[in-house]
């Protein structure tokens, strides 16, 4: 009797396996109530910004953009931290991680799959919010344009053109898109960093608490870094402390361009590219660090 042995070749890295974990993570996350609560809250905030904006005549587009982009930033940052913080501790508690890793799934693939799942969820959320934001902004812009045309029907052509140009330039414009992309990159960075923290944390509460501190310190990192590099009279202890802050934490202020975009500043392509590269660089490094810690974790 001849026995045919079928050799199945096991690849050290498989995109199909990563995709399976990614989709599984996405499904898990979309089944959570917290996701819907946050998303509905963010969409409501963006929708209601139109009423908030009406509280202040003349500034309505600026307030509308501030509130909407702020809601997007808060929601994506919160979702990135909350959704990621629970992944590994929950998998360990439910013993899902043992089932996955018992199969020939390298730990790096598990980490990448989990990360990609959250990033996909964030991308879907930001797309939904952007669509809502653009619809609100466009609707309001059209209304204001019609009102302006009606009110200034008798005005000279030059004045009317100036008024219409003013409305158009302060409402929907292409400069908003790089700002939204940078909000997403910041959320990606926070996701990777949360994943890294969660690889050595034992509970998700600990991870969330640490990430809240990192979030605040990250926004102050630039101040600490510049003081460390420029101030030569500081004491040794102060310099060491500042150096640690500057070296360990990411500069989150670098991703806060929306404050300037809403007041009409255009983001040069070079600056956008550098910020995007920095975001991708942070995300990659924190993911690799997470994979390194997870590789040595006793399960």
């Amino acid at each position, binding site marked *: 009797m001849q026995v045919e042995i079928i050799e199945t070749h096991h690849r050290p890295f498989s995109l199909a396996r990563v995709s399976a974990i990614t989709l599984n993570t996405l499904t898990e996350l979309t089944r959570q109530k917290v996701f819907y609560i946050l998303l509905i809250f963010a969409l409501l905030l963006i929708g209601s910004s139109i009423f908030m904006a009406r509280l*202040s005549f003349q500034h309505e587009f600026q307030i509308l953009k501030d509130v909407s982009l702020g809601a997007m930033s808060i929601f994506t940052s919160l979702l990135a931290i909350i959704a990621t913080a629970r992944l590994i501790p929950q998998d360990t508690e439910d013993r899902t991680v043992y089932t996955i890793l018992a199969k020939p799934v390298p730990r790096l693939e598990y980490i990448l799959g989990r990360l990609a799942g959250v990033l996909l969820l964030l991308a879907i959320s930001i797309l939904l919010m952007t669509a809502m934001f653009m619809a609100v902004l466009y609707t309001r812009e059209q209304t204001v344009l019609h009102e302006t045309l009606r009110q200034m029907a008798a005005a000279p052509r030059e004045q009317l053109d100036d008024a219409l140009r003013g409305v158009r330039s302060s409402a929907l414009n292409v400069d908003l898109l790089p700002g939204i992309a940078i909000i997403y990159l910041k959320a990606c960075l926070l996701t990777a960093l949360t994943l890294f923290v969660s690889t050595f944390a034992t509970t998700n509460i600990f991870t969330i608490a640490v990430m809240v501190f990192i979030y605040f310190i990250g926004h102050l990192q*630039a101040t600490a870094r510049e003081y460390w590099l420029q101030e030569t009279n500081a004491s040794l202890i102060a310099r060491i402390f500042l150096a640690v802050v500057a070296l360990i934490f990411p500069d989150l202020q670098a991703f806060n361009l929306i404050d300037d975009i809403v007041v009409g500043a255009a983001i040069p392509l070079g600056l956008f590219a550098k910020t995007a590269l920095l975001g991708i660089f942070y995300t990659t490094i924190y993911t690799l660090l997470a994979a390194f810690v997870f590789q040595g974790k006793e399960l």
Partner: protein
Amino acid sequence: MTRVVLLLAMVLAFGVMKLPAERALFMQHRQLRFRGVEFNLDLRQQIGQLGFIAALSGFRSIVADIFFIQAHVAWERTEWGRVFFLFRQVTTLQPHAILFWDMAAWHMGWNASVAALNDRTQPRLALRIKAQREYFALAKDLLQRGIENNPEKPQLYESLARLYKDKYKDHARASEFFAKAAALPGAPRYVKRFSAYELSYCEDREREAYERLRQLYDMGEDERLPTLITRLKFLEDKLNIPQDRRIPDTER
């Protein structure tokens, strides 16, 4: 233990690698006048602890909007001191928002100053005028600081020119700032005309005003507006311009 040391070494090495990129980006932000806010104790005292934390966390513009809406409410209640206090916070948090500077100056120069002059609780006219002038000065200061923060935008130069024209009756300064606005990209066409109109009211500068108004007149029908023609005719008479060089009487 070795793994922990290795991890720490990797984190620090990453820190050293990212430092030049972060600094380069920071410098570019400075160059483009982004991150225009210094987070210091003065700001902390101005905006309170919660506002400061929110501003630190990347929600500077939302905090500014909340203060702006509060300022709007204070204006409706004619609480002028509070309006100024809140607008100072708003403009500190969002120094590149032209409308905030403009609105703050408008409240001080046009609303608070009129309220101060008509203040029935103050029987002495001299003190009411003094209070009015203090509000003019606040408006001027706001616009000057706004210009310092946004030197490339024409709107605040125009607003400062209007303040000089309507409140200080200083036509020379008004003309100067209308001209500065006109020289910037994105300025409305009328500011160049306004600069010439204001100059036409300045004694000893009539010749210069005439040249500028005539230049505008020669640019074509679009510029030949009633005020321009009236001022040009007035200067032609005053400067005794020869008949053959005057604009046609049909324009009168």
